[in-house]
């Protein structure tokens, strides 16, 4: 199945007040520790970096290791002063990048 990020972001928030953002992406997070039926190591393939930027400014960056569970989940709190776009980016070991963004209004 295609890798598709899911994010939960409020449509509008009060300026300067913290709100919750949740993200979940379907990814095996193959740790590189497992072996296949023939005893060969299954190569590592994980999301190694997660970033969220609001209007181009970094909100959170997470360097991710294989110890993060399958279907990585991140929940964080942030605040904004003005409306804009919250952009999410997940970087895969194979170089693939999965992105999505959500507009947030002040109201």
């Amino acid at each position, binding site marked *: 199945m295609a890798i598709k990020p*899911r994010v939960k972001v409020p449509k509008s928030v009060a300026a300067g007040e913290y709100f919750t953002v949740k993200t979940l992406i*379907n990814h095996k997070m193959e740790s590189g520790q497992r072996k296949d039926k023939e005893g060969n190591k299954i190569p590592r393939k994980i999301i190694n970096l997660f970033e969220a930027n609001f209007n181009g400014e970094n909100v959170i960056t997470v360097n991710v290791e294989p110890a993060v569970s399958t*279907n990585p989940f991140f929940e964080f709190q942030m605040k904004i002063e003005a409306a804009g776009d919250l952009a999410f980016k997940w970087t895969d070991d194979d170089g693939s990048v999965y992105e999505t963004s959500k507009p947030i209004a002040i109201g």
Partner: protein
Amino acid sequence: MKKITKSILAGGMLALSLGFATQANEPTDAVMTIDGVTIPTHVKAPAGSPLPELFSGWVFRSTETQAMQLDDFDNPGMIFVDQAWETWSTPEGSAGKSCADCHGEPESFAGLRAVMPKWNEAAGEVYTLEDYINESRVKYMGADKWKYSGGKMAAMVALISLQSRGDIINVKTDGPAAATWEKGKEIYYTRVGQLDMSCANCHEDNYGVMIRADHLSQGQLNGFPAYRLKNAKLNTAQGRFKGCMKNIRATPYKVGGEEFRALQFYVASRGNGLPIEGPSVRN
């Protein structure tokens, strides 16, 4: 009430002997609220039930695992529901049709999961939801059957189950379905495998009791498909049956075969009275 007392005692003893905080697995009057919808997880058993009262498997889980099911975003099983949404409207097979072409929105199946499996008059046998899906694929879409317990099947069953969230299970076991129900019942109570155990030994006689570090559930199907923390994917009822049989060192019946289909029918009927909550989160 005997069973509950037992389970609270077991939990209490664990807490005492190991100095742990209480595991908050008190099964009485547990209610879950998912996105504002309140779903009872403990109900009186209907007349004739082999169980004095019915518990969703949710009540036997730890606080953290329970919490994961209380928000559809936190529930990783919803990833697969999303995928099934896409599959729903994607044409497949020689007829060039998608599920949506005949059924419109998945909402059109509201309530269906709560009466499954059921007698299929045209086929002359009891059909599970999985059977209906594969029949549709072959007969109307001209597509290949899905693997009975595979990812695509589990995801589609989850999407359809979600449309019946909170609906009370009402599996009809009489009439022409009775013979299959009896067969399923016989399988349920028959000891098999090197450990010489039946389904009932754990899930009827000992639910609420610890099995190693785990609480045994009633083995209800209302939460299926279930996202298991163990394998990080949706698991179907028959996939779980297979796992159970391996655990008791028995040779599992064939997934999608006559025995497991009868067993799924019978076990589903033991949940008559409990609300549907699939896709659930379990350990």
